[in-house]
C-alpha cells in the first residue's frame, strides 16, 4: 500500500540488531548515498541542550560541512535542527533567503570544498529532535519530486530507527517503532503525560512506556491507551 522509496526499503532492511547509534547512523548515511543522487551524507546530533556531535559522515567533505557549522554556529543543518523544517539549497552560489541567513557558512563551503547543493532534513518525532540528516551534492540543482519524497521518507524512517534505539529497553526486542504505531495520537499524548508524571523529557517518557509494554508483554498502543484513560500512572518506582 505504502509506496516505499528505494532508500526507505534499504533502511528497513538494515539489521534490527544494530545496537549502537553510530553504527546505525553510518548505515543510514550509506543507504542515502547509494539510493539518492547525492555525493555524501552525515548525521549530527545538535539539540539546543545536548552537545553537538557528528554521529556519522560518509566522507571527509561531509564531515567538513558538519565541522564548519559547529565552528561558525550557523548553516543548513543548524537551521533544520532549530526550525524542525527541511532546508533545501539547490545552489550555494545563488543568493537565496537561506544563504542570506548563513553567509559565512555558505562562503566557507564554497571556498573549502566542491559542494554546491546541501539538503538538511531534521530527524524528529514531534518535539523530540533526534538529529539532522545532511546530504550534499557537488552538482548544483534541486532534488526532483521523487528524490525529495524519497529523501524525506528516508529521514522519517531514520528518525524512527534512532528513536527506537534511544528508547530501547535493555532487554532487546524489535529495535524500532513500527511506522503505523508511531503516528497514533494516543502514543504522543501518553508520552506527554508520562513526561509530566516522571518529570523527564519526551524521549525518556517514551522509553519508559516501551519498557513497561515489554515487561508486561503488552502492545505499546495499549499501554498508551491505559495512560490516557488514567488507568495507569507512572511513578518513580513503577516496574
Amino acid at each position, binding site marked *: 500500500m505504502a509506496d516505499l522509496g528505494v532508500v526507505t526499503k534499504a533502511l528497513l532492511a538494515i539489521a534490527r540488531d544494530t545496537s549502537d547509534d553510530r553504527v546505525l547512523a553510518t548505515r543510514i548515511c550509506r543507504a542515502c548515498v547509494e539510493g539518492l543522487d547525492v555525493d555524501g551524507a552525515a548525521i549530527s546530533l545538535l539539540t539546543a541542550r545536548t552537545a553537538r556531535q557528528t554521529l556519522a559522515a560518509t566522507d571527509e567533505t561531509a564531515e567538513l560541512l558538519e565541522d564548519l557549522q559547529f565552528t561558525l554556529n550557523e548553516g543548513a543543518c543548524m537551521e533544520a535542527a532549530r526550525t524542525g523544517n*527541511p532546508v533545501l539549497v539547490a545552489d550555494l552560489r545563488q543568493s537565496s533567503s537561506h544563504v542570506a541567513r548563513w553567509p559565512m557558512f555558505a562562503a566557507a563551503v564554497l571556498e573549502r570544498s566542491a559542494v554546491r547543493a546541501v539538503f538538511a532534513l531534521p530527524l524528529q518525532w514531534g518535539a523530540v529532535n533526534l538529529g539532522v540528516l545532511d546530504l550534499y551534492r557537488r552538482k548544483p540543482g534541486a532534488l526532483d519530486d521523487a528524490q*525529495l519524497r*524519497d529523501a*524525506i521518507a528516508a529521514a522519517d524512517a531514520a528518525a524512527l530507527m534512532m528513536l527506537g534505539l534511544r528508547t530501547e529497553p535493555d532487554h532487546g526486542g524489535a529495535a524500532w517503532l513500527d*511506522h503505523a504505531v508511531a*503516528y497514533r*495520537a494516543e502514543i504522543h*499524548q501518553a508520552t*506527554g503525560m*508520562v513526561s509530566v508524571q516522571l518529570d523527564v523529557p519526551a524521549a525518556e517518557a517514551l522509553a519508559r512506556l516501551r519498557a513497561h509494554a515489554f515487561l508486561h508483554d503488552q502492545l505499546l498502543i495499549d499501554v498508551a491507551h491505559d495512560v490516557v484513560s488514567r488507568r495507569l500512572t507512572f511513578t518513580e518506582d513503577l516496574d
Partner: protein
Amino acid sequence: MDRSSNEREELASRAFVTLADTLVDDYDIIDLLDRLVGFCVELLPTDAAGIVLGDARRELRAVAASEEAAHMMELLQLQADEGPCLDCFQTATAVSVADLTAASDRWPSFVAAVEQRTDFRSVHALPLRLRGRAIGALNLFGEVAGLLPQRDLALGQALADVATIGILQEQAIRRGEVLGEQLQLALNSRVVIEQAKGVMAQYAGITTDAAFERLRSYVRSHDLRLSDVARRIAEKEFDLTEIIPPSTPSRRRR
C-alpha cells in the same frame, strides 16, 4: 439549511477572508487547517470535518479535526488502511457515501468503527488536489443519511483548495515540489500538538480534548502560532499557568 442564501454567502465570504488573512508571511499551517475544518462545520450541513495528508511514503496521516475528540482523529487515522479518504486520495476524485450502512462490504473495518463510536451515517471525501494528484483529503461526516447538495460540495471543494494552497505555499507550487517542506512540517506539528495535549492533560488533570480547547483559545486570543506554543509546551519550556490558571484548591496550596 433553512439559512437564507444571503446569510450563507456572507458567512462563506467571511470565512475566505479570514483564511486569506491567515496566509500571511509566516503562517502556521496547522492553525490554518484547524480553522478550515471549523469553517466546514459552520458553513456546510455537516456534523464533523477532518483533514488527512499523505506523508512521504504516501501513507495517510490525520492532521486536523473539527472536534479533537479521540474518536474523530482515530476515524481519520484508520483510513490509512481503508475508507473513503484513502479511495479519494488514491484516485484524486471526490468520494460520496449517502449511507454508510450500505458500505460495509467496501470498507468493513472503517464502517464498523464509525458505527461503534459515532452516530455518523453519511461521509464525503474531497481531494486536496494538485495537478491531477491528491496530497490529502477533506473528510465530511453527517449524522443524517444523504448526499450533500451540489453547491455544498462545490463550497467544500473550494475549502479543500484553500487547504492545498496553504500547505504548498505559492513558492513551492511554482517550483513544482509536490511534497513541500510545509507538508512535512504540518505532519510533524500534529505529533507535537498531541504531545503537548498530553503534557497539559496531566498537568491540569483534564482530558486531552479539553487540553486542546484551552490551547486553541489561548493561542487565538494571544495571536500566537499554535504549533510554536505546542512545541514549547511539549518541551516543557512554557509556563502552563498562563493557559491554565492555578485556581483549583489543590494547586493553590502548592
